[in-house]
């Protein structure tokens, strides 16, 4: 009987994707909500290095970084797969997951939070990457095929959080007009019955982002 704890923050897409993975595998776990402005001593004991959520603790051993945690969950528990079994397909999944995270989500997020030259630079980067992603998702329901895979997990930021953030700040890069394939995929993902159960309420996220935008602090 293994003991699993997850330290998280309700609004974090990185935490949500880990929860989704745990739920996919049917793993029982204790969820601990961390106040990121006032981190608990227990949390800091488990993660003195990055001090970020999510942190998965399995039988007393901590694991950090959502991408590392997803691999660990897939390797440790039976059930539906998150990563493909074939080595080449697995390499391709890792490649596209990194592309989505580093080249799409990050500049999109940055563009929304910044202004002036910095915003324009991030916008240009995001648009170039989104054009590539638009081609990649063409003709597919999900990046994982018929079922969601790790690229879809990592894509939760652009499918759910970014559209809300764009509305809050009034700056839109990822639109249905410019990127219809990505928009369609995002819709499918957020309306998928399993994924839906693992997303926070849209209004709550919108409110939290509005407040963050007004105060200039993410938490």
């Amino acid at each position, binding site marked *: 009987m293994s003991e699993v704890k997850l330290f998280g923050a309700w609004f974090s897409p990185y935490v949500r994707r880990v929860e989704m993975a745990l739920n996919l595998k049917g793993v029982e776990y204790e969820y601990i909500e961390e106040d990121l402005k006032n981190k608990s001593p227990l949390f800091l004991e488990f993660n003195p290095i990055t001090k970020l959520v999510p942190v998965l603790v399995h039988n007393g*051993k901590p694991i*950090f*970084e959502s991408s*590392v*945690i997803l*691999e*660990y969950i897939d390797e440790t528990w039976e059930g539906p797969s998150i990563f493909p079994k074939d*080595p*080449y397909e697995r390499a391709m999944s890792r*490649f596209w997951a990194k592309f989505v995270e580093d080249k799409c989500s990050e500049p999109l997020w940055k563009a929304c939070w910044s202004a002036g030259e910095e915003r324009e630079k991030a916008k240009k980067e995001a648009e170039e990457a989104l054009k590539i992603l638009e081609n990649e998702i063409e003709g597919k329901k999900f990046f994982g095929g018929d079922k969601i895979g790790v690229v879809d997990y990592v894509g939760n930021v652009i499918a759910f959080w970014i559209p809300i953030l764009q509305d809050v700040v009034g700056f839109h890069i990822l639109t249905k007009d410019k990127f219809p394939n990505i928009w369609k995929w995002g819709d499918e993902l957020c309306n998928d019955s399993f994924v839906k159960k693992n997303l926070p309420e849209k209004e709550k996220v919108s409110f939290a982002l509005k407040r963050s935008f007004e105060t200039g602090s993410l938490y």
Partner: protein
Amino acid sequence: MAASDVKVLGMWSCPYVNRAQLALSIKSTEYEFIEENTLQKSDKLLKYNPVHKKIPVLIHGDKSVCESCIIVEYIADAFATGPRILPSDAYDRALARFWTAYIDDKWYPLVKVLRQSDDEEERKSLVQKLSEGLILLEEAFIGCSKGMAYFGGDSIGYLDIILGSCLAWLRVTEKVVGVELMDPTKAPQLAKWAERLCSDDRVKAVFPSIDRLMELHELIQAFLKSSK
């Protein structure tokens, strides 16, 4: 698997390329090395890595794999010969992947910034950050090696390849800046590990010599100054 079925597109001086080469060597897999000139990207590079247009690229039959960490994991998964590259225990694998992300995202990029920095204050700050990082990596080594020779245990593994590939440019940076970053008094286990790793024949055959890299560094600095 014939050598012609496995190719590496890269440059001799690039640590990310060295990772792919060392992993193939550990798996006793022959390959053809195709030297790329990154100032003038070849048609092959643009064909096999159209997204990033960067080295290294591993070509295996008709498939291509990009990004050094993804390549090393692919080599670990796809080639059955030779010792394991990734640890057999899932938790140890998670640690190796976490430290790899730390090295590539937080620590190693500072080495290049330090080497190319002219600003005294900036240099001081970077030296401090890099030294603090090395102390963390010393602890990581103690935890991962469990008293054995390498991060991977008794044989060279994933994290040895990842951090090991950073050593050559780290040494060049130490010479250029005139500072000892890998201080054997502050990180004794890591310093011994570095010596041990670099004396392995397979590593010697792949990692570039410090002298050759110093010459390249001087060429790059001259080029950067002339284009300002």
